[in-house]
């Protein structure tokens, strides 16, 4: 730093002969200096002061003196990253700077027809405005309850309160009045995310984060006003709130999203709350008997360096042997535990499988190289999916996963269309009993109740072909497909040494999307495709040859050509997916207007994408099957169903009264 260094050489000038009267040859130069000690010291000090001041001024202002901002004439927007930015995976949003096409392309504008098409038919969303995290999902007295972060005033995040809706089947929803608003000092600045716990007597407690009137993040307790009301319309906040405040060592804005509680072997209830210490993501642990007073454990549930803030932590058991859900308190030798966290830095939900030690409330991962939050660790979903939360559905013995699906468009469009964000279709979650190393997710069975007419297809598709699949309307579809690469093609390519092994280098994100042709892929479906293919969203497998002649399979969604619009994010998403000996390649796709949910290999790899076509909408949206492989012929066997609307019911007093009587 020039300015602080400047102090040092200047102090040396006290001895600078030039400060005295300059007679170098004068043998009495020293006595000259000593004759005026006080004045000299004062002059020197002022000199020091002014020089340091001036240098500091120059160093910080760098020549710019006006209050107006000056800009370089070349005017290029730069997205060059430094330091922390460089370490973080480039967000899809960075692609926005390079507007598609050159400067002379047709200027683009959203019209109401394009925007109103984007609203989904069977995904959960409020009637209008902004939504984010799922909150406190539970099943009670015949109803599935869903709460959510909601902005009653705008189509962007802000003024957050708890929205509420109920359903008999997780698909057909009725909107209810807001469950909780920001009416106390301890949640005046936001009624944020929380979770529900069932007590032994069947009653419900809700723990949630409040942002206080001083913007401190605290945990609060709430419970239903009337347990006889199956709709749980009204909620009461505990008069002694907050029940937890940030503990020593934790910053007031790093303490949020309490989990569902589980019973310890000592008979207490235990919860965990995500936080961070510097750049280490952590999960704090608290024990309680009454949800009003808590004892913080000295140990953390877990921590992983360099992962940043852990939001929406989730912790639950999964069976090692059975394909069913487990209550959050279950423990035992046939059980593994999942720790999941939403990474604030990267907007990715990561999880890991491991072992829980109840005696001290700690957990260790089976594979520390893919510990929670490390970029290569497992994800629920390789697309747009965040702040997810599971709950145990005691009605059907399932563990169900909700995930917040944000928009990938501009806020202008959200404001214009009047809403923002969806929830994914609820998914069951179980451990993959075949691999033991990952979870498997699948849309809840109830979504099948929306299936209308279906068409079955069976075909062989040669390399470099495209087949239009005539199913009528193609914006609301459920597709289940099985693919097989013909044995002759596989043998030929595996045996051909000139076909390079590319499995190590391939990734959905970086290998150029679905137009880049390989020996054994890509092949799959192109959804929301215009007849001319000027807009389309391919969902596909890419099978790559590995060095040891083994095959590695990738499952991707390519939204790069999904829309002409230049203000939407259009990434290629995906990941490798385990394929076991003897398995065919299977995929399921739910298409619902501006959301495409793809499930590879029975839900071993899931990809949620948001797409905003401008032309491939209404009757112009089509479905294609394609095989872009250079050498392989594939057989495809699939079913396509038209999907009905879920007719999500807006809130009305009569509807609520009618429901209360059922």
């Amino acid at each position: 730093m020039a300015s602080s260094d400047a102090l040092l050489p200047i102090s040396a000038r006290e001895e600078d002969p030039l400060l005295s009267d300059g007679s170098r040859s004068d043998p009495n130069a020293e006595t000259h200096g000593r004759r005026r000690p006080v004045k000299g010291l004062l002059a020197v000090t002022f000199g020091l002061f002014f020089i340091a001041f001036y240098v500091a001024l120059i160093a910080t202002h760098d020549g710019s003196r006006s209050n107006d901002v000056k800009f370089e004439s070349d005017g290029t927007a730069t997205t060059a990253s430094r330091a922390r930015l460089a370490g973080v995976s480039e967000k899809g949003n960075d692609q926005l700077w390079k507007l598609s096409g050159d400067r002379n392309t047709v200027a683009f504008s959203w019209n109401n027809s394009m925007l109103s098409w984007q609203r989904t038919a069977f995904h959960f969303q409020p009637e209008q405005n902004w939504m984010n995290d799922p909150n406190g999902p539970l099943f009670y007295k015949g109803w599935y309850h869903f709460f959510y972060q909601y902005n009653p005033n705008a189509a962007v995040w802000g003024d957050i309160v708890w929205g509420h809706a109920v359903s008999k089947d997780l698909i057909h929803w009725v909107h209810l009045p807001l469950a909780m608003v920001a009416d106390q000092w301890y949640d005046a600045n936001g009624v944020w995310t929380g979770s529900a716990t069932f007590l032994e007597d069947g009653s419900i407690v809700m723990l949630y984060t409040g942002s206080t009137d001083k913007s401190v993040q605290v945990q609060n307790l709430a419970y239903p006003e009337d347990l006889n009301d199956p709709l749980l319309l009204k909620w009461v906040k505990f008069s002694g709130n907050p029940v937890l405040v940030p503990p020593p060592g934790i910053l007031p804005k790093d303490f949020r999203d309490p989990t569902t509680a589980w019973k310890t072997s000592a008979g207490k209830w235990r919860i965990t709350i995500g936080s961070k210490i510097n750049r280490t993501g952590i999960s704090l642990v608290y024990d309680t008997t009454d949800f009003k007073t808590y004892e913080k454990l000295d140990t953390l549930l877990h921590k992983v360096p360099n992962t940043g803030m852990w939001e929406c932590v989730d912790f639950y058991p999964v069976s090692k042997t059975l394909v069913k859900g487990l209550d959050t308190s279950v423990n035992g030798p046939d059980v593994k535990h999942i720790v999941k966290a939403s990474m604030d830095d990267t907007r990715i939900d990561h999880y890991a499988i491991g072992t829980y030690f109840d005696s001290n409330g700690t957990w260790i991962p089976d594979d520390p190289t893919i510990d929670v939050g490390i970029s290569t660790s497992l994800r629920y979903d390789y697309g747009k999916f965040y702040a997810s939360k599971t709950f145990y559905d005691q009605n059907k013995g399932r563990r169900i996963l909700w995930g917040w699906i944000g928009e990938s468009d501009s806020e202008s469009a959200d404001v214009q269309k009047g809403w923002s964000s969806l929830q994914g279709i609820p998914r069951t979650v179980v451990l993959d009993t075949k691999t033991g190393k990952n979870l498997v997710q699948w849309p809840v069975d109830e979504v099948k109740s929306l299936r209308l007419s279906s068409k079955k297809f069976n075909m062989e598709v040669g390399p470099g072909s495209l087949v239009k699949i005539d199913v009528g309307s193609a914006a609301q579809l459920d597709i289940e497909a099985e693919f097989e690469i013909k044995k002759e093609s596989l043998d030929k390519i595996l045996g051909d040494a000139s076909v390079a092994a590319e499995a190590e280098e391939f990734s959905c994100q970086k290998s150029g999307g679905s137009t880049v042709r390989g020996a054994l892929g890509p092949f799959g479906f192109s959804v929301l495709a215009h007849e001319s293919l000027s807009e389309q969203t391919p969902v596909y497998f890419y099978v790559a040859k590995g060095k040891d002649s083994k095959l590695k399979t990738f499952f991707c969604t390519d939204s790069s050509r999904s829309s002409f619009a230049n203000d939407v994010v259009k990434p290629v998403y995906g990941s490798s997916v385990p394929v076991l000996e003897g398995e065919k390649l299977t995929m399921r796709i739910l298409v619902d207007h501006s959301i495409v949910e793809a499930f590879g290999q029975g839900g071993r790899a899931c990809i949620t994408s948001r797409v905003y076509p401008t032309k491939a909408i209404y009757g112009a949206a089509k479905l294609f099957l394609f095989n872009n492989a250079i050498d392989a012929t594939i057989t495809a066997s699939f079913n396509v169903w038209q999907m009905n609307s879920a007719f999500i019911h807006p809130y009305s007093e009569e509807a609520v009264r009618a429901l209360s009587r059922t």
Partner: protein
Amino acid sequence: MKMVVVMMIMMVMAMVSEANMIEQTCKETPDFNLCVSLLDSDPRGSSADTSGLALILVDKIKGLATKTLKEINSLYKKRPELKQALDECSRRYNTILKADVPEAIEAISKGVPKFGEDGVIDAGVEAAVCEGEFKGKSPLTSLTKSMQKVSNVARAIVRMLL
């Protein structure tokens, strides 16, 4: 006497260290000079923490959007043939003022910076889209380019809060 000297040196060092906070922060952004000039020109800059610096930049985005809207409005009369593009720009810049800025302010102040990042990124997007509406013959280039640059710097600082 010595007290005066000590005080003066302390004042200088304080000034230098406050200048350091802005410099250290700005070093981590894609445009050091722009960042420093924006923060230095604001009286709150000298005593702000990272959160405060981020809020200053959001304020600059707000000011720049207001200024650009005024310019858009004046262009309706001078360049009536550009009406369609000006309408789109007006819509986009109104989004910056009415959606992006309030969202960023609330999120940064309340400690959920990721929504602040969304807001400041979007300000740059809206400006870029507006610019594109003129198919290469924009009367607003210097203003839209400014917004993109300020948005980039703001984003970098908001990310430090994550």
